């Protein structure tokens, strides 16, 4: 099966027009906190990953994955059509209950990564006040974690506070100057006219040069 994952701090509302315009018939998920990108160590998009029936990622291309490239389409068709391999059982996935996550945090209250995970889950469920509490606690434990900043930015966008979101994204960019997902999120918030109705690629190139001091 084919699954698209859209990275956009503005969430479903920002992605849906593109999804509708494309008439997408495939599953599309939204990753407002860039949790997927971070897990894959990707600081750019587009990326492609082929995962087998056991949930094991067997092939990938991080950055520059052109989904319309005939070679990619052919490789994807061949991968999907190949006979099922003799594989270990699929990844065991215990029920992802909030209670289970809360219990993990209670057992390890100083684990910022766990609190980030709980905060991301609360944010997906639109429990903004609870998410904010977890994420701010996580940030207090690990101030150099760009993922916490990026998730807080997504929370602020959800709360309709774009100025606060940009503050968090700028802090994230200080920590990760090569993270183009963070950089572009800032541009998108501050210069929406450069992205809609058409993406102004020339402006992006100039902006990057300017920000890079060149």
């Amino acid at each position, binding site marked *: *099966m084919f*699954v*698209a*994952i*859209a*990275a956009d701090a503005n*969430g*479903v509302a*920002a*992605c*849906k027009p593109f*999804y509708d315009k494309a008439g997408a018939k495939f*599953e*599309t*998920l*939204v990753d*407002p906190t860039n*949790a*997927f*990108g971070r*897990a*894959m160590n990707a600081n750019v*998009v*587009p*990326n*492609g*990953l*082929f*995962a087998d*029936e*056991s*949930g*094991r*990622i*067997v*092939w*990938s*291309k991080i950055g*520059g*994955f052109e989904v319309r*490239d005939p*070679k*990619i389409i*052919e*490789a*994807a068709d*061949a*991968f*999907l059509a*190949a006979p099922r391999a003799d594989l270990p059982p*699929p*990844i065991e*996935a215990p029920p*992802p209950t909030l209670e289970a996550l809360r219990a993990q945090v209670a057992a390890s209250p100083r684990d910022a990564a766990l609190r980030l995970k709980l905060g*991301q*889950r609360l944010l*997906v469920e639109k429990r903004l006040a609870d998410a904010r509490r977890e994420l701010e606690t996580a940030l207090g434990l690990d101030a150099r974690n760009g993922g916490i900043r990026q998730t807080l930015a997504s929370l602020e966008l959800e709360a309709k506070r774009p100025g606060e979101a940009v503050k968090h994204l700028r802090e994230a960019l200080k920590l990760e100057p090569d993270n183009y997902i963070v950089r572009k*999120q800032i*541009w998108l918030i501050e210069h929406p006219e450069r*992205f809609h109705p058409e993406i102004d690629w020339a402006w992006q190139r100039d902006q990057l040069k300017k920000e890079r001091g060149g």
Partner: protein
Amino acid sequence: MLALIAAAALVPAAGVLPDVTLTTMDGKAVRLREYAGRKVILFNWASW
């Protein structure tokens, strides 16, 4: 198939589907690992 993969510049990867919870277009939470059990092509993109 390996020749096709090479031509498409995909590289061998390690690891498993990350344990992340994402949102469907109708706002429901879905755990990526729920897709295990099927072959999956994941395309990670952005509108910008």
